[in-house]
């Protein structure tokens, strides 16, 4: 066993014995952001939520198939954000699933759907938390979808089924969520010696590196669903604008 691994394992054992129950997962845990930051991130989310509610209302009014697709992208987030998947770093994390919806319905629609999932997880699973809800919504339901949407718009060109753009959009959107989480934690907990920059490196090592293979998995699965949607749309069995 390498020395680094040994240190990590010892600290993990120490952590397990200190915390009676390990029930959290990949979002920022309840109470783990100072109150100031809990409030700031919460307030920052509000305009996106308002825009998101409008966007969803507009999409629901378009037709029956838009409603169905909205159900699909919501279900996609529910499934992907509950699956804790092993990574080559030897720890687990979960994808976010917001890229697909951001591509199909725009980023702010996913802010609303992400909020629903994060509420479910913080209330029923003690995963994430109400005090950290704003920060978690900001990373998973705002930054992630906006990155996905931006990359998709930038790369799709005029192809009918821009698979590569979809893949990169979903993969990088997923990764961006965890980079944002690392940034949020490092602003709140700067390193005493190296400041925020040193601290961000530490959080990135924990979150973002583990996330890389999972982000690729999310990219692949998003392309699979996107392929089906494009096929059904071309056949005319899926009637969307």
């Amino acid at each position, binding site marked *: 066993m390498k020395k680094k691994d040994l240190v990590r394992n010892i600290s993990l054992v120490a952590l397990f014995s200190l*915390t009676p129950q390990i029930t959290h997962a990949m979002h920022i*845990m309840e109470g783990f952001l100072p109150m100031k930051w809990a409030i700031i991130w919460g307030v920052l989310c509000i305009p996106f939520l308002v825009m998101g509610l409008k966007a969803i209302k507009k999409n629901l009014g378009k037709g029956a198939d838009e409603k169905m697709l909205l159900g699909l992208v919501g279900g996609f987030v529910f*499934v992907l954000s509950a699956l804790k998947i092993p990574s080559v770093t*030897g720890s*687990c994390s979960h994808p976010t699933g917001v890229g697909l919806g951001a591509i199909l319905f725009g980023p702010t629609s996913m802010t609303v759907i992400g909020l629903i999932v994060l509420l479910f997880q913080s209330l029923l699973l003690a995963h994430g938390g109400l*005090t950290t809800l704003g920060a978690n919504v900001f990373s998973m339901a705002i930054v992630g979808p906006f990155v996905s949407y931006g990359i998709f718009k930038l790369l799709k060109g005029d192809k009918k089924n821009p698979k590569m753009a979809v893949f990169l959009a979903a993969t990088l959107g997923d990764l961006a969520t965890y980079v944002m989480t690392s940034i949020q934690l490092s602003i709140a907990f700067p390193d005493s010696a190296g400041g925020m920059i040193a601290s961000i490196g530490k959080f990135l090592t924990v979150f973002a590196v583990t996330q890389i293979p999972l982000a690729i998995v999310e990219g692949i*699965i998003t392309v699979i669903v996107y*392929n089906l949607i494009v096929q059904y749309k071309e*056949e005319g069995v899926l009637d969307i604008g």
Partner: protein
Amino acid sequence: MDNVKKQNRILFLLALAIIIAPLILRVGAEFGGSDDQAEGVITELAPDYEPWAEPLWEPPSGEIESLLFSVQVAIGALAIGYVLGTFRERHRNVTNR
């Protein structure tokens, strides 16, 4: 059309391989949550930090927690299956005509 099916099958196997690979490559690894490690980093950076809020309710056991995670997946999978199933049926009606 068959092209899509074939491509999706390959993509699915690829995703599966990426998920399974760590279990084979890293035998004996903890596979704990990355957030628990983040908690460790916070303790290291700010040893005096006390979380100022507790979850209102926590699943009483690992079993109940996995039950609720399964419920989350089930809700999502139901929606996905229903919607894709509906489109698939329409697709069959169109292609069999």
